[in-house]
Each structure stands twice: as structure tokens, then as C-alpha cells.
């Protein structure tokens, strides 16, 4: 059995263990006997914790998969879906809806976020144009993310009321509090479509190990690959941001954890990275809910707190290798 299949099976098993534990965790402990026993326990499980569980798993998988694909495409272990500018475009869309006073829980916010993500993807495609250059693509992504970041800051600074400001800032820090099945219904189909688009990139990502020229000589259509990347990563990340805000570092960390275990082949990293991403977000969210803090810690904050030292470790290891 290839190493990546073995790792995927192990991760799937870990997910199956983590899922019920996560359902039990929270301010109100609900033991498995109450899950289907009617009453409040069942309500909490079915209407609150189950959708949250599904979102944790799908968002983690989406970010892990998008990150692994981005790193393979850019052939850069430090690439992150955030580099792409789509998550900040989606965030800008969401923030715009909050600015105009939309109710956070309504469908308006995810709708705006998705529109933002779509606009970001369209802008990226437009800038990159007919060229299939990876450098142009990276720079266009950087341009997009800094522009949308600046516009988001602008909206925060001119928000009509302090309440709107607080709401925007609060939302920007990714979290999965009070999510419902409606959020699952918004995100899941888009993420599946995104994953499907990325599944088609497998041979191309592997061939890119040899560089762009060699990949083209192997019959890889670089323009088609670029379209698939924009569509796939855009849908995965856009849908994640639409329902959970920006959760950083998952897309960066997870492919790294997985890569040495599967022999570094870009396509072998994809599935384990999706599963490991799901597990990481699920465990982190369960911890966030279980910690005895006054108000719940935000998932996005925890991810960044864990992610930053990891990133530092990576840089130090790279420095050692370069020395």
C-alpha cells in the first residue's frame, strides 16, 4: 500500500474518533446517551454541534487541500491559499455587507463573501490573461490580497457605528460559533465543486516537479491548469471564508506536516492534506470550546497562535539547510 493511502486511512480513522469527542465538548456537556434521546441534548447536538462538526471538517479539508494544491502549483513550500487573494476578496465582500448593516446570521453575508471571492477570481483571471506564467499569477495574487486588505481596513475605519466596527473586526477573526445547517448548505456544494476542479490537476502538479518547460513538454496545458487552480482554490477558500471568516495557517501548515510522510510527490500530498486539515480544525475547534475561558477563544486566533511558531520553526530549518 502506498504511503499516502496508509496515511489517509490513519487520518480518516483519527477523524472518526475525534468526531464523537467533539460532539460531547462544549459549555453544556452532552453525553452520547442524550444525543438521540429527544429534549435539549438532542437539540444541541442536531442543530448546533453537528453542523459545526461538519463545517470544521469541510473547512479544514478545503483549506488543507487548497494549500497542498497551491504549494504544488507554485512549487513553493511557503505558498498559502491566502497568497492567492481570494480569501481577502471574500472577506472584503463579507465586511461590505456588515458595513451596510446586514444581519450576520442572514444569507446576505455569505452571499456577499461569495460575490467577493468570485470578483477576486475574475480579477485574477483578468490580470493573468492569456499568459500561463506562474510568476505573473503569484504577483497578481499578492496585488489582489493587499488591495482587498487595504479596502477592508478602509471600511473598518469609516464604519458608520462603533457597533458595526466591532462586528466587522469580530467577524474577520475566523470562528465557527453559532453556525447552522444553512451555512453547511451554502459551503458544501461549492467546496465539492472546488475539490473536483483540483482533482483534475493531479498529473500537472506532479509534472511541475520538473519545472514549467519540462511539464509543457510532457503535454501539460499550463493555461488549463491555471484555470483549474483559480476555480478550485477560489471555490474552496471563498466558501470557507464565507461561512467561517479567515482561518489562517491551516493551508500552510498541513501540507508540511504531511509531505515528508508521503515522499513529497505533490499529488500524493493532496488527499492526506485534506484529511489532516479536517482533523486539525476539528481538534482546534473542540479545544477552543472546551477551554474554561470566560468568552470562547476565536478559532482563527488559536490557529494563528499555533501557526506562527510553526512557521518560525520552518524558517529556522530552512536557514539550517541553506547554511
Amino acid at each position, binding site marked *: 500500500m502506498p504511503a499516502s493511502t496508509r496515511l489517509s486511512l490513519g487520518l480518516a480513522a483519527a477523524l472518526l474518533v475525534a468526531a464523537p469527542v467533539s460532539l460531547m465538548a462544549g459549555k453544556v456537556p452532552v453525553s452520547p446517551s442524550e444525543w438521540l434521546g429527544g429534549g435539549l441534548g438532542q437539540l444541541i447536538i442536531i442543530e448546533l454541534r453537528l453542523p459545526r462538526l461538519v463545517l470544521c471538517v469541510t473547512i479544514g479539508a478545503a483549506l488543507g487541500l487548497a494549500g497542498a494544491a497551491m504549494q504544488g502549483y507554485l512549487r513553493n513550500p511557503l505558498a498559502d491559499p491566502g497568497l492567492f487573494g481570494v480569501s481577502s476578496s471574500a472577506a472584503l465582500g463579507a465586511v461590505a455587507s456588515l458595513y451596510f448593516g446586514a444581519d450576520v446570521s442572514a444569507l446576505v453575508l455569505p452571499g456577499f463573501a461569495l460575490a467577493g471571492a468570485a470578483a477576486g477570481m475574475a480579477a485574477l483571471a483578468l490580470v493573468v490573461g492569456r499568459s500561463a506564467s506562474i510568476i505573473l499569477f503569484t504577483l497578481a495574487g499578492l496585488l489582489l490580497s493587499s488591495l482587498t486588505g487595504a479596502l477592508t481596513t478602509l471600511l473598518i475605519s469609516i464604519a458608520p457605528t462603533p457597533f458595526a466596527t466591532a462586528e466587522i473586526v469580530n467577524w474577520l477573526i475566523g470562528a465557527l460559533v453559532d453556525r447552522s445547517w444553512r451555512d453547511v448548505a451554502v459551503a458544501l456544494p461549492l467546496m465539492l465543486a472546488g475539490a473536483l476542479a483540483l482533482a483534475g490537476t493531479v498529473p500537472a502538479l506532479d509534472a511541475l516537479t*520538473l*519545472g514549467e518547460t519540462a511539464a*509543457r*513538454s510532457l503535454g501539460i496545458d499550463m493555461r488549463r491548469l491555471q484555470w483549474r487552480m483559480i476555480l478550485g482554490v477560489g471555490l474552496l477558500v471563498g466558501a470557507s471564508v464565507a461561512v467561517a471568516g479567515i482561518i489562517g495557517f491551516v493551508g500552510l501548515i498541513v501540507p508540511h506536516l504531511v509531505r515528508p510522510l508521503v515522499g*513529497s510527490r505533490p499529488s500524493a500530498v493532496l488527499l492526506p492534506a485534506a484529511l489532516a486539515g479536517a482533523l486539525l480544525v476539528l481538534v482546534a475547534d473542540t479545544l477552543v470550546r472546551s477551554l474554561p475561558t470566560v468568552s470562547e477563544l476565536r478559532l482563527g486566533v488559536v490557529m494563528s497562535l499555533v501557526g506562527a511558531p510553526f512557521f518560525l520553526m520552518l524558517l529556522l530549518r530552512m536557514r539550517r539547510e541553506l547554511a
Partner: protein
Amino acid sequence: MALAAEAVSLALQGRPILAGISGELPSGAITVILGPNGAGKSMLLSCLAGLRRPDAGRVLLDGTDVAGMPARTRAQAIGLLPQRAEIHWDIDARTLVGLGRAPHRGRFGPAAADEAAIDAAMEMTGTAQLAARPVLRLSGGEQARVLLARVLAGEPRWLLADEPLASLDPAHQADMLARLKAVAAAGTGVALVLHDLTHAARVADRVLLLRAGRLLAGGPADAVLRPDVLEAAYDIPVWRGTAPDGAPLLLPVRRAAG
């Protein structure tokens, strides 16, 4: 069967790079593309590989325009070893060689034919014992052989290599040339961009000599690799002698005083 350029012209941003180049790469022979820096050698190779569409003229593979062929069909017939070796991930050597099967691979993973082609390519390049080693930790010479195996694994009918000897020491250069010769002897058409004239003389069956985007001379190696022709191309006198093993020796020399 031949891969042939027919009056290929190419301009980049209004600057002419290739002007009406015609030449043929016969099967089972080594064609060396020579010329000073900026003569258009790599661009010609890129056109021959079907990666760049000429502005005028065509590259024909058994009578079909390669620029219009489906990428997969083209990739099955023509293998390219690019100028700068790139290996971006630390995969094992056998996996890297397997990447060369991309144009043949079916939807459902590697088939027996793929494994056999990978084995044969590694055997031919003497890399079989490196199979499980991570490529980034191999020596430069070993990496070059593994990358050659990668191209051979695709079982191309033409192998185009852009400066395959760059960054190799003399022994590895000789080894690489011998392996490329064996590839041609097995029936593959081989085209090499080279800088070293003596290397060219050792392996070339035919030579295309470019200068400033034009074909200065083309034909059997002995007809092109003459001191007067080479001096006209490189602007430096070339001395032709014979090495102890009987092979021609071509050495750029200082211009005589006066």
C-alpha cells in the same frame, strides 16, 4: 521518418530571433545545434519541441505540424531535456523517472507498460541502483542521469536536449555523450544544443550551425565542423586536430598576430 523545421521564423517583441531556418532531425542519428550565444539555438529547440509556434514556417513530424498537434500526442513523440535542470521536490529517483510517463499514463495509475518503460530507462542510464534515493541528495552527475532517464521513460521517438553537458565534470560529460549515442543507436532521433566543439565533433552525425538567427551551415558533421566555417560562426579561429583516440579535436585559438 523525420522531425523537420521548414523555413521557421520567429520574432520576440519585434526582434527577429530565427529567420527562415530549415533543417532535419533524422531518426537514429544525433544532430547537434551549434552557434554563438544568442544565435537562437534554444528557441529553435523550443520550436522543434512544439512548445513555441513559429511566426512563419512549420515544424513537421512525419508531415504533421507539431504546433497544431494535441499536446499529449506531441509529448508521446518528442521528449525534451530543458536547459536548466529543475527538481522542485525531494521525491525518490524512481518516482521522478516515472514523471516521464505522463503522456502515456492512463486514468487509473501506472500500468505494467509504464513500469517496464521506467525499468528500461533506469537500466539504460545506469540509475537502477538509485531508485529509492531522494533525488535532491544525489550528486550532480547522478541527477543528470536520472533526468535523462525521465525523458527516456516516455519512450520518445525524438529526444531534444538543451546543453545536457552543462555543469558536468569531464568524466560525466563523456558518460552522458556515450549514453546519448546509445539512445540514437537504438533508433531515436537525438538533437543536442552544445557549446563545446570537440564534444560536438565526437557525437554529431549532422550539425546545424546558427548565427544571429540564420542557418550558417547545415549538413553532415564533417562538412560543417571545418575551421573556416566555425570561424565565420564564432568570430574566433578554430584549430582542428586529432585526439589520441582518433576523434577530431576542435580548439578555439588566439588570432595570429598582425
